[in-house]
């Protein structure tokens, strides 16, 4: 009985949710703190004194609140997502509605990205303000059972309440990218390395069918396409990290510093052991 043998068996959802909320706060404070520090330095150089400090604090607070409030919209825009039409993407809507019944969740707003690379993500501040994004490649290429597995994985991010930290990280950590590897560390802290495996496991708890998600992971592994529009500070959101794929080509050490995903092979092995 080793600790790593079963990362999910001893999970404590409420503990996990509290951890996520706490980490979100730390990220936002770091973001606001950095703006304040830069502002105060500028203030000292220019010599505006105490009035300048007050202005800096106000600006830092405003920008931090804006980073929090706009996070979902920024993630959607960054991925070039558009709302999924009810009749054009009937199967997508139907599958999500069914899974929401099983999970006891309100139906999130659905979006698509016109991209052949099969991928998806969930974002938002809470289960009531959540969005689900899938690429057209994912919707076209996977069969019903496989697609259901992936969508259940994304919905369990919503249910586990870990979309907040990952979404806020898009704007807050995105704004800290100038810090380089330190921002990467911050991303690891925000998202945690267990996020994906936990969502795989709790997604399967919704569908009660591990082979569906397993087959989807294998299909995605075999597909070499990478989503066209992604940013370093957004890789934590995607179902499969666009960063890891770049390793063969453009991937840099900085990309890897931001990558919070375990390798696909590891996730497949974990599902096969269930």
């Amino acid at each position, binding site marked *: 009985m080793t600790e790593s043998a079963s990362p999910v068996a001893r999970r404590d959802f409420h503990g996990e949710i509290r951890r996520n909320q706490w980490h979100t706060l730390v990220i936002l404070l770091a973001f606001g703190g950095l703006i304040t520090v830069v502002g105060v330095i500028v203030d000292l150089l220019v010599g505006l004194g105490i009035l300048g400090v007050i202005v800096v604090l106000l600006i830092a607070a405003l920008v931090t609140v804006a980073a929090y409030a706009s996070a979902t919209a920024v993630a959607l825009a960054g991925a070039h997502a558009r709302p999924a039409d009810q009749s054009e993407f009937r199967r997508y809507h139907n599958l999500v509605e069914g899974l929401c*019944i099983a999970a*006891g969740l309100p139906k999130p707003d659905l979006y698509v990205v016109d991209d052949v690379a099969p991928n998806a993500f969930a974002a938002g501040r809470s289960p009531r303000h959540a969005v689900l994004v899938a690429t057209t490649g994912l919707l076209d290429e996977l069969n019903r059972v496989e697609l259901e597995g992936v969508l259940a994985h994304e919905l369990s991010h919503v249910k586990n309440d870990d979309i907040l930290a990952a979404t806020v990280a898009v704007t807050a950590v995105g704004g800290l990218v100038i810090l380089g590897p330190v921002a990467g560390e911050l991303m690891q802290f925000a998202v945690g390395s267990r996020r994906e495996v936990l969502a795989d496991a709790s997604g399967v708890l919704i569908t009660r069918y591990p082979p569906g998600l397993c087959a989807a992971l294998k299909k995605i592994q075999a597909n070499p396409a990478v989503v066209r529009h992604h940013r370093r500070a957004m890789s934590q959101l995607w179902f499969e990290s666009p960063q890891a794929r770049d390793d063969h080509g453009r991937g840099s050490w900085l990309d890897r510093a931001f990558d919070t995903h375990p390798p696909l092979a590891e996730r497949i092995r974990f599902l096969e052991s269930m």
Partner: protein
Amino acid sequence: MVAVLVIIVIIVVVLLAVALFYNGLVRTRNRVDNAWSQIDVQLKRRYDLIPNLVETVKGYAAHERQTLEAVTAARTNAISAQQTGNVGQQAQAENVLSGALKSLFAVAEAYPDLKANQNFLQLQEELTSTEDRIAYARQFYNDSVLNYNNKIQVFPRNLLASSFNFEKRVYFEGDPEATGPVKVQF
């Protein structure tokens, strides 16, 4: 004086705990009821889709009368079984309906024009996803029952549950015959 204060504090704490436990139990029980009504919502959705499906298939395969009639009859049976409120009877009628639909879709395989019909494809997608939803709604109901039964049986909530008449709920169980092949009369 101190003793009186201590007693008052204890009483307040106990009352607060009882109120909290009670509210929690009511919420959990309401969720079970809601989960049960979700199943009915999805079943009704299926009943509503079937007449459209029958009409569409009729246009292409009018001489498959028996199959079409079997579906219509199974639907009528299922609706009246739902109204009786007998869970076992309802489960059986629903199983017959699922079987009849399956044979209708099997028959449709022989008609390429029908299979290419946009309306038919849409109905097929809707019915498949409704079947999924029925299964998921039952799963959610059972999860809710498990959660509720656990709550009312563990100490100290069980003391409260029994004095306020919170009764154990039963799981929705699939018809044991349903695991075997479904018989459809023609």
